[in-house]
């Protein structure tokens, strides 16, 4: 027996201790009825039983608009001073942890993005177990539960079993000991999902579903609203825009969320567009999500969170492509 059990009636003490480690953020129900990651504080209830947030936690690492360079005539272009406050993100489901692990590969792999690294280093991840709903199709959870976060909270009838995975997580767990009860350490959860297995196999064979008639159907329905990419925990493609100040001298260069379903995504100077129609844009998104390109080649970046299936206003579901193959068998 170890002291690793967080009982339900100790949650407020738990949050109080966590807050000594950094600014606390977690899933809350906002006034407009949306589940969102927000700062926690007095009078704000942390949701420990929720399906999914609308916007994934990528916003903590890649804000929708992020100043990457400042320009002044006598200084040229310079990077912003990276002063990022310590942030504790509590209540992340395994799919969102997997999403962050993927972003880490893209932004802190062979080439390190300084802004991303500054934010990532200041971020402590506290995972939370979940129960899948009809939109979820996540794969085996044990990896994220044991590697993808600093601390993991697994729900049990008595409360939450805590497990630390990193030195930071261990230090936090130690600081929590006074409020924890003794409990049996639980083995990491493992859950299998047929859909996730199907996706992995299709990706391994480099499946593009090029002949499928579904592409035409999707393109016919799609409104190019871009909601599916916006709410995707691993969609990170960005545009770079420069905004001159009114003084006519200084300027700010921003990295802004972009969207491969938008028409101008594949446009080049002079107006020629390499992905003029929706079908081409859909296939581009599919390529990135399920086959990868560049440094993420061969990596499936769909984590099965189900957000795109929930938010699409016309009910497009890329998983139908995989299901079609399954049905043919």
């Amino acid at each position, binding site marked *: 027996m170890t002291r690793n059990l967080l009982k339900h009636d100790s949650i407020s003490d738990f949050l109080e201790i966590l807050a000594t480690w950094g600014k606390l953020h977690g899933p809350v129900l906002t006034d407009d009825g949306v589940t969102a990651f927000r700062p926690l504080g007095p009078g704000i209830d942390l949701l420990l039983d929720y399906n999914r947030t609308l916007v994934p936690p990528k916003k903590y690492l890649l804000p929708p608009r992020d100043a990457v*360079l400042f*320009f002044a*005539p006598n200084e*040229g*272009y*310079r*990077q912003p001073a990276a002063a990022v406050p310590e942030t504790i993100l509590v209540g992340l489901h395994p799919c969102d942890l997997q999403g962050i692990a993927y972003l880490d590969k*893209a*932004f802190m792999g062979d*080439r390190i*993005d*300084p802004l991303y690294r500054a934010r990532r280093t200041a971020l402590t991840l506290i995972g939370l177990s979940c129960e899948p709903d009809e939109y979820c199709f996540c794969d085996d959870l044990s990896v994220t539960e044991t590697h993808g976060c600093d601390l993991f909270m697994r729900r049990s009838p008595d409360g939450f079993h805590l497990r630390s995975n990193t030195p930071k997580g261990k230090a936090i767990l130690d600081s929590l000991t006074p409020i924890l009860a003794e409990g049996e350490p639980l083995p990491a959860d493992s859950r299998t999902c047929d859909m996730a297995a199907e996706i992995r196999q299709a990706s391994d064979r480099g499946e593009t579903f*090029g002949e499928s008639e579904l592409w035409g159907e999707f393109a016919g329905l799609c409104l190019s609203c871009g909601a599916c990419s916006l709410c995707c925990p691993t969609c*990170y*493609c*960005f*545009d*770079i*825009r*420069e*905004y*001159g*100040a009114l003084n*006519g001298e200084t*300027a700010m*260069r921003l990295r802004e969320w*972009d969207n*491969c379903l938008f028409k101008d*995504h*594949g*446009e*080049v*100077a*002079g107006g*020629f567009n*390499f*992905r003029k129609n929706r079908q*081409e844009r859909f*296939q*581009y998104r599919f*390529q*990135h999500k399920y*086959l*990868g*390109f*560049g*440094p993420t*080649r*061969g990596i499936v970046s769909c984590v099965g969170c189900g957000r795109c299936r929930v938010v699409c206003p016309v009910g497009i579901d890329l998983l139908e492509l995989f299901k079609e193959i399954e049905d043919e068998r």
Partner: protein
Amino acid sequence: MSDSRDMTIVPLPATIMGRKAMTADTALYRLILENSEKDRFDFNPGQFIQLSVPSGGEVPITLAGPPLLQNSFELCVRRVGHVTEMLHHLLPPDRVWVRGPFGNGFPLREWTGRNILLIAGGLGIAPLRSLLYTLLMHRGDFGEITLMYGARETSAILFKDELVELSGRRDMHLFLTVDFAKEESLGGLTCNTGLLPTLLKGVNFSSTGTVAAVCGPPALYKCLLEELQELGIPAELIYLSLERRMKCGIGLCCHCAVGDLFCCSDGPVFRYSQLKGISGAI
């Protein structure tokens, strides 16, 4: 190297040393990096830079001159967007900012001993000019060198003075064609009328052991590639320089993917054999 001096992340200042108008909307710029003793600027033909004009933003531009030009470099820029529009208002010794160089460039080392056929359409002459001058700098390493260059009309032909000089060289062949015009003499240059594939059919050149480097608008690739293969140049030896809107240049922003390849970091120069079967590649 600290981040603040990492030229792939933070643009460094460069002075415009020269500007030469080529056509009504296209000019050749010669730039030199400031403090360039520390940052010796070297590149391979076919690579590109990200050019910044403050308040306007950044655009990818191919390097148009030979490498190691006393540490300066040349860009041939057409005024087609808001950044290039702003650039066209600048004159020596105004400043711009530069990141790079990015991309792979043409694999010259693999071409030793081969005949080289360069085919440029329109502004596609820019990277091939860089390539051509580099080949000529190491003339003895290569076989026959042929440049075929097509433009829409005679007034759109870029680098006319240089073409006149090149046409007088005995160690390379030069063929020009324009889409619309009467056959005319052009300040000492002979120019055909018709599209590049037609020119290609009509010209005798040795296709054995020949490498082709092609750069031009997508419409050019579509008709030219079959023609080149029929003439006996295999897809593995046809190199294309692709255009995409690279926003970052370092394989992150995800705007320039071609199949599972990034134009900015895996390209922009690809063998045609790499691109076959990739829908939307050309």
